[in-house]
């Protein structure tokens, strides 16, 4: 099953529909005796900004390199835009910013983008139109005719980003896209991600800056030891296993077991008010507790869920396995 999709200005490409933009099934990579990626299974829908997180050495970059055809999987299967890995039609619609961005330093920014435009199969008129656009997007128009060797690290990362977006891709892999950028540069990248999301581009984002991923991503996967340790919508992950404090009027003792069925009560301190500390599986559980208390006429003076960050979730998931490995 396929449909015709207009991609860059003059390139019309047949592509399969109704499949995820990225689908990995049991992807595995072993380097000699070291398992870098182990049974990686996940899927990313079209138009999603997907955060790919994990501690150092978790296998993130190896996973991306496998998808980009730089490293061959030992086993498993993966499809990008419905095509098998390495398919040239898919590659025309994919952009990639490598983690260790090193480009031909003797080329000017303009020549570098022209080279990559040619490799994408763009015509000269497409390149003439598109190159100034992407240079402006990454704020490098003034440096178009300077050699990349004279660029700062941040500028090199920006030109790499321009290269990744040159072909007006439907799917972009960004491996640590802000590692060399200052706060202003990071803000610019967030704006670009937001714009890509608005255009329906699927973005696979690997970044150590969790606050950035939290702001930019629709869904994330946290991988550890080459496997998916957790995956889901950012909001769901943040509201999962919430610590919450209830400030109540006097709590009848017989209500505590019922309360404990809805949330995991950790502590009850009786005083002027009863202060109940509990862990809730999600926001719905908190709402159910409030409902229960209201039905039993227990005054509720305050419900204070702890605001968690993606970093907290990340640490909760990754730290135990790291400590177990010590």
């Amino acid at each position, binding site marked *: 099953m396929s449909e015709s999709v207009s991609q860059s200005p003059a390139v019309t490409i047949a592509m399969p529909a109704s499949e995820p933009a990225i689908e990995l099934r049991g992807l595995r990579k072993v380097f000699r005796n070291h398992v870098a990626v182990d049974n990686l299974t996940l899927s990313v829908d079209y138009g999603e900004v997907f955060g790919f997180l994990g501690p150092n050495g978790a296998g993130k970059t190896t996973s991306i390199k496998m998808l980009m*055809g*730089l*490293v061959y999987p030992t086993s498993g299967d993966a499809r990008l835009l419905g095509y098998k890995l390495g398919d*040239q039609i898919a590659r025309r619609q994919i952009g990639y910013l490598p983690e260790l961005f090193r480009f031909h330093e*003797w080329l000017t920014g303009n020549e570098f983008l022209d*080279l*990559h435009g040619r*490799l994408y199969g763009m015509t000269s008129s497409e390149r003439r139109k598109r190159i100034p656009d992407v240079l402006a997007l990454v704020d490098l128009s003034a440096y178009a005719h300077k050699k990349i060797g004279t660029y700062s690290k941040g500028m090199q990362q920006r030109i*790499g980003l321009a290269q990744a977006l040159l072909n007006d891709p439907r799917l972009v892999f960004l491996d640590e896209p802000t590692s060399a950028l200052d706060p202003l540069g990071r803000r610019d990248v967030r704006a670009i991600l937001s714009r890509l999301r608005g255009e329906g581009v699927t973005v696979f984002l690997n970044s150590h800056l969790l606050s950035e991923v939290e702001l930019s991503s629709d869904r994330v996967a946290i991988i550890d030891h080459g496997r998916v340790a957790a995956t889901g919508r950012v909001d769901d992950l943040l509201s999962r296993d919430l610590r919450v404090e209830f400030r109540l009027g006097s709590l009848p003792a017989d209500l505590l077991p019922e309360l404990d069925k809805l949330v995991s009560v950790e502590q009850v301190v009786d005083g002027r008010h009863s202060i109940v500390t509990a862990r809730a599986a999600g926001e719905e559980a908190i709402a159910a507790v409030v409902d229960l208390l209201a039905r039993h006429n227990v005054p509720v003076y305050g419900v204070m869920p702890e605001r968690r960050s993606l970093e907290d979730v990340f640490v909760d998931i990754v730290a135990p396995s790291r400590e177990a490995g010590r």
Partner: protein
Amino acid sequence: MNVAIIARLTVREAFRRKVILGVVLLSLAFIALYAIGFHLFRDNYLSLEARRSARTGAGPSPSYAVSASAMVLLGLYTVNFLTGIMTIFAAVGTVAGEIEAGTLDAIVPKPIGRWQIIVGKYLGFAVMLSAYIILMVCGVALTAHTAGHYAPPHLVHGTLLVILVSMILLSLTMLGSTLFSTMTNGIIVFMLYGVAVTGGLVEQLGTALNSDTMVKIGIGSSILLPSDSMWRLASYVVQPSLAISFIGPNPLGTTVPPSDRAVHYSIVYCLALVIGSVLVFQRRDL
């Protein structure tokens, strides 16, 4: 199309890194020195010849062609040697260096076959090296003609064989660059180049001393790396037969030319090594 893009990139890199400028300047210096040398050689030869004629009353000696041919051989040997060194230096890190630097990480995921990267690079170097060899041989021949009033025979055939020498070394260096780091590749290729040159010398000595074993050692080294045997064939075809029999087995040439089969072997050798480079690069993780 992609092959042409990579070939063009390879040529452009050589220009941008001022490799071409350096090579052109040094080559011009070589041609200038060679022209002066050839001019002085002819003057000295003619004055010696005039003194000899005055002393003996004999007519002009036919040995001028032999001496002039030796001068041309020296020039072409230098071109062959310089091109060999240049080939190895230019291509030693063409794949390994880009893998080490990470520049291929942005190229390989593009809609381009890995084989196109290898073939494109090979063609880029091949075009540059062939152009260089043609220009340098023209420089030597022009010098021989203007300063020495001598025209070597079968120059086109000889030039093609010198180009083949360069292609053999290029193929080997490319294969090494897909297999090893830049430094390891450089060491290995230079050692093999040394083995081939030494093997050629041993073969010439074996011919002079009628030693089958020494000749076989030379043939063995030619199988390992046929660059030296192709040079010796080139040196054979650009000399008149009188010069070959007069000079005999020598470090720069040969009296027993490698056969057509050796030429075919060299061409197959190049193709096999390029295919090998493609297969290795096709399979390796970057």
